[in-house]
């Protein structure tokens, strides 16, 4: 009887040992799999970082980015020529900008969206983009292309998309191919008409006219702002306010 019990105990001990070994092996295998996953994750993150470094740094008409973002940002806001907002709005905020200017790009991405949300969408004010070409000669065809897009109701889409895809200042990226890429991305319906409008004498004259106007207003850099409305006489110059709230206050004063 005692012999049988001892055999059972030995068998149980052997089974327990085998189970422990099995469990240990399984554990080691799973930890190895976990370590492999860690190495894989490191490799994937490294590849993602390298790919993001190689991503277009702007100025590439064949790979226009942020088209969806821009159309979403401007969705539902009326546009006419280079004016964004309700045409009946009593206050007009004028932005004198150069499409090649990196500060204008920063303003367009960081300051103007708040002003548009607070004052333009509510119908209190409209914003008008006016070219003030100061960076290089290429700013002229860029500005003319924006005006031509405005004739088809896509002026602000063009301006915003241009800023989002802006290349290195003065690097010569503003080619016909780049402008066409922006126009297509901005949703300009008739590219043929846009091409003819942007090269017309009247459009180029308009770019030159607003640039002269900016100089006459005393602006020396871009973006510069002015406001008009019942509360001010003529155009009140604002210079380059650093915050959205400063622009919003100026709009309120002009009401």
């Amino acid at each position, binding site marked *: 009887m005692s012999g049988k019990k001892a055999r059972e105990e030995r068998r149980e001990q052997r089974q327990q040992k085998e189970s422990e070994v099995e469990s240990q092996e399984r554990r080691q295998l799973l930890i190895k799999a976990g370590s492999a996953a860690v190495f894989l994750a490191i490799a994937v*993150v490294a590849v993602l970082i390298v790919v993001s470094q190689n991503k277009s740094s702007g100025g590439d008409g064949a790979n226009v980015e942020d088209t969806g973002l821009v159309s979403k*940002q401007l969705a539902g806001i009326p546009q006419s020529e280079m004016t964004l907002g309700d045409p009946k709005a009593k206050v007009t905020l004028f932005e004198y900008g150069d499409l090649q200017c990196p500060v204008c790009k920063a303003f367009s*991405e960081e300051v103007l969206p708040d002003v548009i949300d607070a004052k333009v969408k509510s119908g209190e004010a409209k914003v008008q983009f006016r070219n003030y070409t100061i960076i290089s000669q290429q700013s002229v065809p860029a500005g003319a292309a924006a005006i031509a897009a405005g004739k088809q109701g896509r002026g602000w889409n063009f301006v915003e998309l241009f800023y989002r895809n802006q290349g290195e200042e003065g690097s010569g990226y503003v080619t016909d191919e780049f402008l066409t890429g922006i126009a297509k991305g901005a949703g300009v319906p008739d590219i043929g008409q846009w091409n003819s409008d942007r090269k017309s004498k009247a459009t180029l004259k308009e770019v030159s006219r607003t640039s002269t106007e900016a100089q006459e207003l005393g602006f020396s850099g871009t973006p510069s702002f002015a406001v008009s409305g019942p509360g001010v006489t003529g155009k009140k110059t604002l210079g380059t306010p650093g915050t959205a709230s400063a622009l919003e206050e100026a709009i309120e004063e002009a009401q």
Partner: protein
Amino acid sequence: MRAPSESTLRRITTFAAAFGIGVATYIAIADARGGAPVCLAGGGGCETVANSSYSHLLGINVALIGIAGYVFILVSALLRGDLARMSGFVLALAGFGFSVYLTYLELFVIDAICQWCVASAVLMTLLFGLNAVRMIVYVGRTP
């Protein structure tokens, strides 16, 4: 040093993942409304990050990917056994790796910091740590 019990690790993971779902949901709702999350400390970093092209991956807001990740991690914390331990670890690892990539983008590409993204990255780091301990200490053992 003695490792915390598996139930403690699972409990903290559940809370952290639920908190992560809240943070990611807030970012996703702000995006769906056409705006951006509000940076509590100001500075406009949240708007810059939300308006950048990197806020969407193949047209999907990264916050929605975050919500999915947190939900799966939460489910793995509620379940027992090796499959749950390994799934939780792999998911938290993927979330942590993605957070490292997004933080790199904020610091070196977008040049703006969004507090909500930082909050999510901290939570993902915590979840990765918890799930790594759970996997290393308890995998292969009886629940």
